[in-house]
């Protein structure tokens, strides 16, 4: 489904500020696979997602989606940005409906689907609020609903639960898995939480920084559908978390400050 082939990205901000953000990253993601990316801050996780999304061009290498080289953004790949990027002039409902109406979905249908998604992210009561009137976590949930609304085949999620409190976070993890179980989208999911990565993913990719590259890939062999309560007691789950956390600590320590 997604083939990242030898992708490197160098930023040339100035002559003395060249920065190799990604170095020769190769990764393929199967259709319907849920892959998480972990790594220290600044290792190029967002950059990698932007390249797959077609927002940023790689300096070297290429990305194929369904065997077609990525030339730019498209509705087959839905991004959820770390910064939310909600349209401030649209209400919550307007934001969620935006992509649907852009895609030519009739108004009534777009409205119904948007309301359904807002119920899922528990924001039905806020549909007429403007983004500036929402908390960080609420904005993030709107951003997720907005992207899910136009049904991209691939979800590119950049720390979508980063700004949420632990309770909402686990709630949304469950919801995301639930939605994902229904239509098995391909997901690239960036996170800082090892537990979250293990809970959600089929594979966890550990990156190291400066230059950013893939350090190790873990297969998470846990049965689905997964339930949080059961997994927390599951020995295998605990082992994965501990193993990856150790590796994460090592990687972070090697990373220059």
């Amino acid at each position, binding site marked *: 489904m997604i083939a990242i082939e030898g992708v490197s990205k160098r930023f040339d901000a100035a002559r003395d500020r060249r920065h190799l953000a990604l170095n020769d990253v190769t990764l393929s993601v199967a259709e319907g696979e849920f892959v998480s990316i972990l790594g220290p801050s600044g290792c190029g996780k967002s950059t990698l997602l932007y390249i797959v999304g077609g927002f940023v061009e790689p300096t070297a290498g290429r990305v194929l989606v369904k065997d077609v080289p990525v030339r730019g*953004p498209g509705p087959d790949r839905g991004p959820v940005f770390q*910064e939310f990027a909600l*349209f*401030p*002039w649209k209400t919550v409902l307007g934001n969620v409906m*935006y*992509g649907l109406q852009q895609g030519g979905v009739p108004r009534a249908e777009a409205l119904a689907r948007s309301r359904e998604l807002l119920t899922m992210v528990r924001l039905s009561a806020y549909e007429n609020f403007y983004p*500036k009137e929402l908390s960080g976590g609420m904005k993030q949930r709107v951003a997720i609903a907005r992207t899910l609304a136009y049904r991209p085949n691939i979800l590119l999620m950049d720390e979508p639960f980063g700004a949420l409190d632990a309770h909402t976070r686990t709630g949304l993890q469950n919801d995301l898995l639930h939605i994902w179980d229904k239509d098995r989208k391909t997901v690239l999911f960036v996170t800082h939480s090892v537990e979250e990565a293990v809970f959600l993913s089929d594979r966890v990719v550990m990156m190291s920084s400066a230059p950013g590259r893939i350090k190790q890939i873990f297969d998470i062999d846990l049965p689905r559908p997964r339930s949080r309560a059961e997994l927390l007691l599951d020995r295998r789950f605990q082992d994965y978390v501990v193993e990856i956390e150790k590796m994460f600590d090592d990687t972070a320590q090697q990373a220059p400050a």
Partner: protein
Amino acid sequence: MTRLTSIPGLPPLLACLGILVVWELLARWYGLNGLPPASQALPQIPHILSDKESLIDMGESLRRMAIGYGLALLIAVPIGLWMGRSRYAAAFFNPLMMVIYPVPKAALMPIIMLWLGVGDASKTLVIFLGVTLPLIYHSYQGSRAVEEKLLWSASAMGLGGFARLWRVVLPAALPEILVGCKTGLVLALITMVTSEMIARQAGIGNIVFVSLDLGAYDTVYAMIVIIGMLGILFDVGFEVLRRRLVGWADSPHTIMVGSA
């Protein structure tokens, strides 16, 4: 004690009253011929406002102002938005703006009159020139500041280049564009009056300067007050519009008026 400033509308009313009192006192104190007291000038206002000739004159002025302002909106906003999104457009238009900015637009009036005569066209053009630069400048700043990820989100939804400019850059930059519109509105009023001062024929400025020549100072001052009231009226109307259009945005900017 209840705070007087907390009563809406009271502080500006007090300020106006204060000015009138100072005006009245100064006029009585010095007894200058060229400075009639407020109590003498103000009664002229209803007189002027019920005079058909002057009303036609004012209508003419406002019509020119509306056309000049409208044309400027249609041309300046797209240019500004385009400059903010394209490095080449910015590189092309920026030096032009730098050259034109310090030139007082009303001072171009005599030259323009050589080309277009003393009629409507010259005055409208001067108003247009006076308004264009702040409009371009603020549209440019607004468009430049649009968050990249908003555009990315839109292009992921399938919006093409032009649709993004129209449906993302324009609304996102609207609060800043409106700052330019508001500055432009004041400048339009100023250039309107000055243009008529130079090319006298009809209009608000014409009434002022003809009365000045005739020594009808109370009319002159009454007209100045009317122009000031027009300014306030535009400002209030604009605020209502602004709140409706960009209520979703954070607090408004403070407005600075540039050169006319």
